[in-house]
């Protein structure tokens, strides 16, 4: 407080001390300060400056502050119903051939004929065969002299996990016992018991089980345990659409059963929790703008995309300006045939349709599968090389008019060297116009780059740019359902371009001495 008052007083006293015609009474502003003053009076321009500053901070600082990398992928658990097994009830006769006997395809067919007709004998090649029904859906086939050839059955004898395949006799006896509802049988001189669930026990150990259902895994490497089968059959018997089963490794899964009447198959789907990329994750605390197609954080992609977009803009405009100033400067200063030649070149470049050319080159780079990083470089070079004509024309025009002005005659009269005349007196007078044009063309370059990336021929994955983030909308599902993927990128793009245009516009007004404000 005290200090402020003092300085105020000092200022007042200073002013009073000057004589009336003292130059110091007039506030003198340098041309630069005048321009700045005019610029900061323009509200739109200041707004543009703020917008640009915000976008730069967002892109360049934001990327550093965020804990994630631009290509860091995030994962999530998702529950998925996967086809697990298919279950069919066996309705076909299957055959088991007795040891050291033959029962080939032809005999099987002959048996089927006889079975279909309901007769119990058939003959083939002068040999007679007899069919004996041993139980429900269990038949034995023998020759007339009583040798047992084979059995035909529908209930299936499965081997228990880790047990050797039961012999033919065991199989036959087991089936006979099962179909006739007996609880024990003897085969090969050994005693076996059958429990209600169809398990075949040999002195307490389970060697196999009988079941009408065939359970086939849908995927390779899936082992169906007996335990699971039992649980499944139980569910099938009670018509439960879903059941929970805890596997041997303690993993609890839910299974869904659906029956397809056409193929007579129960398909069992296992609900599993899988660890996948967090694809199109909704905005959350960890990811304020959600995640994209590859499970990458959108906000971070947006920041890095901003870097790419802004950098490409700057580099392209730099190339354009560099070429333009040199060509325009030479053309304007030297005039004559040089001017004529360069101006015709400018005409040609003006006339080349740049967007189609870039699209063609982009499609070619697609074909050649150019590395994304090198591609970005090419893109900048192409854009810069196609865009210098406008700046060259501007610089030439300015220099032509400046060259005729008195101050240039004065520099010549003073004997100032040519290079000094060009760089100290000519170029500085072109710079205001140049700055305005560059600022405006920064905006349009960013739009061009974004458009190309949107069409898929600009900046490519893994690099992000605002354009290629938006290109996700080519998938109409993304467009309609995941606004958080593309709308923020579009808004960023707009803010940056609008910022450049506001600032460029403000600069134009500020540099214009005719503007009264």
């Amino acid at each position, binding site marked *: 407080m005290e200090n402020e008052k003092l300085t105020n007083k000092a200022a007042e006293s200073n002013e009073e001390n000057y004589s009336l015609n003292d130059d110091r009474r007039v506030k003198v502003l340098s041309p630069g300060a005048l321009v700045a003053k005019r610029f900061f009076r323009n509200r739109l321009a200041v707004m543009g400056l703020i917008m640009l500053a915000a976008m730069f901070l967002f892109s360049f600082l934001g990327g550093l502050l965020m804990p994630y990398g631009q290509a860091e992928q995030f994962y999530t658990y998702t529950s998925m119903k996967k086809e697990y097994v298919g279950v069919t009830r066996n309705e076909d006769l299957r055959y088991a051939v007795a040891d050291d006997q033959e029962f080939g395809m032809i005999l099987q067919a002959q048996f089927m004929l006889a079975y279909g007709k309901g007769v119990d004998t058939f003959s083939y090649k002068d040999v007679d065969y007899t069919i004996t029904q041993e139980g429900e859906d269990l038949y034995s086939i023998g020759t007339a002299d009583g040798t047992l050839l084979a059995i035909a059955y529908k209930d299936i004898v499965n081997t228990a996990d880790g047990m050797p395949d039961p012999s033919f006799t065991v199989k036959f006896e087991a089936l006979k016992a099962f179909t006739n509802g007996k609880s024990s049988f003897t085969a090969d001189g050994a005693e076996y018991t059958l429990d209600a669930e169809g398990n075949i026990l040999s002195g307490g150990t389970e060697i196999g089980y009988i079941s009408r259902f065939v359970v086939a895994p849908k995927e390779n490497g899936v082992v169906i345990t007996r335990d699971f089968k039992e649980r499944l059959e139980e569910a099938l018997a009670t018509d439960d659409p879903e059941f929970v089963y805890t596997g041997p490794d303690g993993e609890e899964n839910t299974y869904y059963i659906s029956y397809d009447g056409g193929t007579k198959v129960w398909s069992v789907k296992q609900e599993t929790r899988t660890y996948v990329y967090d694809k199109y994750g909704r905005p959350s605390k960890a990811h304020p703008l959600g995640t994209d197609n590859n499970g990458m954080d959108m906000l971070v992609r947006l920041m890095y995309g901003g870097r790419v977009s802004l950098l490409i803009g700057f580099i392209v405009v730099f190339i354009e300006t560099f070429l333009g100033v040199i060509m325009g400067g030479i053309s304007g200063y030297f005039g004559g045939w040089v001017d004529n030649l360069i101006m015709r070149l400018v005409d*040609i470049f003006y006339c*080349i349709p740049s967007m189609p050319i870039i699209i*063609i*080159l982009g499609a*070619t780079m697609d074909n050649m599968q150019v590395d994304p990083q090198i591609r970005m470089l090419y893109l900048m070079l192409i854009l810069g090389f196609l865009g210098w004509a406008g700046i060259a024309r501007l610089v030439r025009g300015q220099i032509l008019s400046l060259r005729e002005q008195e101050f240039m005659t004065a520099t010549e009269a003073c004997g100032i060297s040519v290079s000094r005349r060009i760089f100290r007196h000519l170029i500085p007078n072109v710079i205001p116009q140049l700055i305005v044009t560059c600022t405006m063309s920064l905006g349009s370059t960013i739009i061009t780059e974004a458009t190309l990336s949107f*069409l898929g021929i600009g900046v490519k994955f893994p690099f992000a740019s605002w*354009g290629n983030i938006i290109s996700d909308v080519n998938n109409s599902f993304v*467009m309609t359902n995941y*606004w958080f993927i593309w709308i923020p990128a579009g808004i960023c793009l*707009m803010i940056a371009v609008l910022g450049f245009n506001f600032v460029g516009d403000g600069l134009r007004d500020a540099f214009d001495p005719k503007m009264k404000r």
Partner: protein
Amino acid sequence: MRTYIVKRILISIVILFFVTLIIYTLMRCLPGSYVETMAMQLATAPGSKPYEEWIAQLNAAYGLDLPIMQGYFQWLGEFLRGNFGDSWKFTVPVITQFKKVIGVSFIMGAISLVLELVIAIPLGIIAATKQYSKTDYAISAAALAGISLPTFFFATLLKLIFAVKLGWFDTHGLVGRNFAQLTTSGQILDMAHHLVLPIVTLTVISVGSLMRYTRTNMLEVLNADYIRTARAKGVSEHKVIYQHAFRNTLIPLVTIVGGSLPGLFSGALITETIFSIPGIGFTSYQAMTAGDIPFTMFYLTFIAILTLAGNLLSDILYGVVDPRVRLA
């Protein structure tokens, strides 16, 4: 005047020669072309000739076996005789395909140009007459926002809001599903309905620059001495603006609008592609990405001619409208 026009046309022809030469060379030099892709496909067929033989045969069939300069002059000769070749991508003569698609593009361009004029000129004049007022700021900001809007983003937003959420329009295409069953007037209405969003996009994107141009020129005119004189002698403000100032603002406007007339035929590549409107822009985009040299050459030459014609037209108009300007 006549000598000026003749001179300009002659220069234009020279420019056109070099532009087409550059484009032709570029198209020929690019690897991964249409022919190579085709040869690659053919060579993978079982029992087929090797790739090298296919490519030699195809190059001969498509006239690509000539050296670039010779090939260019052959193309040029055919072009001058009005033979534009057959499109590879669309497998019809280039000119047939062109005639089929140019109409839609022209209609779109023409309607949006009219809309632009109707919106931009009055708003530009209002902004200039009320310089630095709230209205001026609002109009300037809106104009710059229009310029800053990326076409593809704006088009997608329109699609999301009006086609998906509100369901007023279709998202893609020029005709609806039941187009064939409609009467002639119904078909026209159907097409018009499908063109609403593309035309809105085109108008909003390009209205800004015309608005700003009007404003800048009007401001310049309003600062002129004769306006001060008119005010000083007591002419009403309305008359000053709409009779004295507006007429003089029209000079640059007429030239710029006249210069943009040929551009009506060049199509809107991005907008047409996004809305899948089968106009010249979308068609040429397909041709370009497929490496269809005849169609692309024709289209690019066409665009180059339109650009030159636009420049020439605007320069001539400048001389015609403004008696102070002498063309030499």
